């Protein structure tokens, strides 16, 4: 551990599916975690674990740019799951472990069979947890497409559980089916849920009349979706009291605390690395520490699910 990260007090420790994190803030899948340099950058930013870019069976180029549109404190993206393919997993995990951090490997297949094969390779590489991407909204065949039905959700999760002993996190997006999907994933053995992915959206250039993203539509993230993330975490926690990693619009200590009080034990950040810069992790940790002192709480776990207290 570097001298900087060790300064973080134990009051911020978090445990998700048995994995001990020195604090609750990770990157979200899709932020940099597809090559060594990017992973180093994430580690320098102070995350407590590194989540890889979603890895697919084969390398994917993704869509041609524009793959992102800046929208103030929000963003629209359709990267198209560009990634080096599952065979890069060994190098990625090695880099993460080389810096003493847990490696959360995000994987994305088109069906249960592919998810199982990906899970096996990720486990062999030493992944500390597998994050099943069942919610990317803009890449045909993957994400929401691969998990269209409740049956599919069940099959993928139980398939993966049957071949690995590594904790399985299931990443879902907001939809009216969320509670049913969450229930299916949990009953199939998911150890934690990661909520939420981006919400479908489109931006059109008014002069040309063209949707700007090459894929025409993409996923909305950042501040715009924060209330939807809080809602999703709250509803799922209320129904299942399960382990949840909260994602969506975390951009300062307040937005972080909201998700924790809604029921999240740990958090992930994507868009705020762009809107606030790579200092965001330390800013939030300082804010969380200050808040705990201010309200006289011993540690962050006291806050988990506080919004459900009667």
């Amino acid at each position: 551990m570097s001298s900087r990260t060790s300064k973080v007090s134990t009051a911020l420790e978090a445990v998700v599916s048995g994995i001990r994190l020195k604090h609750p803030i990770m990157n979200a899948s899709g932020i940099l975690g597809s090559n060594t340099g990017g992973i180093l950058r994430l580690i320098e930013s102070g995350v407590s674990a590194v989540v890889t870019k979603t890895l697919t069976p084969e390398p994917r180029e993704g869509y041609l740019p524009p793959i992102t549109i800046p929208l103030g404190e929000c963003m629209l993206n359709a990267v198209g799951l560009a990634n080096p393919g599952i065979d890069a997993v060994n190098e990625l995990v090695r880099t993460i472990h080389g810096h003493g951090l847990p490696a959360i490997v995000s994987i994305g297949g088109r069906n249960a069979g592919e998810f199982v094969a990906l899970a096996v390779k990720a486990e062999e590489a030493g992944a500390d947890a597998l994050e099943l991407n069942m919610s990317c909204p803009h890449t045909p065949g993957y994400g929401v497409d691969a998990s269209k039905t409740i049956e599919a959700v069940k099959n993928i999760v139980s398939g993966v559980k049957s071949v690995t002993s590594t904790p399985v996190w299931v990443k879902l997006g907001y939809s009216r089916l969320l509670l049913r999907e969450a229930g299916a994933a949990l009953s199939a053995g998911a150890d934690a849920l990661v909520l939420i992915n981006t919400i479908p959206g489109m931006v059109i250039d008014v002069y040309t009349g063209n949707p700007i993203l090459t894929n025409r539509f993409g996923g909305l993230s950042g501040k715009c979706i924060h209330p939807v993330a809080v809602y999703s975490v709250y509803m799922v926690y209320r129904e299942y009291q399960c382990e949840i990693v909260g994602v969506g619009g975390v951009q300062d200590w307040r937005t972080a605390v909201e998700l924790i009080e809604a029921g999240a034990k740990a958090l992930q950040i994507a868009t705020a690395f762009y809107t606030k810069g790579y200092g965001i992790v330390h800013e939030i940790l300082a804010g969380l520490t200050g808040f705990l002192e201010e309200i006289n709480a011993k540690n962050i776990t006291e806050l988990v699910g506080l919004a459900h207290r009667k």
Partner: protein
Amino acid sequence: MRNTSNPNIHYTTIQVIENKQLSSTLHLIRSKIKGFFPQPQPPQFIMLWVPGHEAIPMSIAGYDDEDKTVDIIVKPIGPTTRYLAAIRKDAYLGIYGPLGKPLVPSGKKFLLLAGGSGIAPIAHYITALRCGKENYCRVVFGAWTKEEIGNAGEYIQSIGAEVTTVCDEGCDYRGTVVDVYRGEDKEEYDAIISSGPPAMSREVYKHTPREKLDRLYIVFETHVKCGLGVCGSCVIPGTSLLLCVDGPAFPAKQIEKVMR
């Protein structure tokens, strides 16, 4: 800890006002900004979206806050840049930016080394460094042939720098930018900025005395896809630097790994 502050990055449509061919390979495209675009500083760049084609990274070569125009200088090398080079007045394009980090050295005398389309950020530097006004700037601009230099030297001169052109035949100097650079008295300049193909900047680096390295700045290129620091495609090999947020210009010492 390298930090990047809250970016003020906007998308806007632009509309081509003029496409002026500066040389056989360089096209100066001036466009009207149709929405809001914040004041850029060199060597910031944009993602330039050509509807129907790709979005590609392009240096900002000029910006006029009053007229609300932005300039780019394009060198056609593939489908998107070729399409751009032939673009007509009134065509719409989309941009988002300004991207990357402003890096404007202080001082009174500057040496600016440009190769090919590397001239684009240099044009923006000439305004930002107030060349020909409070400060003195010497531009060494090179390309393979006289045709590729074309009128670009005159253009650069007209915006305030003293220019030496370099090419295989018929320019102020015969050879390469690096040949001229070797003969320069580095002591004279408060800062040296190199903007061109990686091979050129590597040579510039090699011929800069160790003790002068902290005056050398290099405008670099990697593969930019998002421009926002999220996709990881622009990472400088062997480092954790992202060209699109930490660059595109770096103090030479920060990127020694890729200069050797």
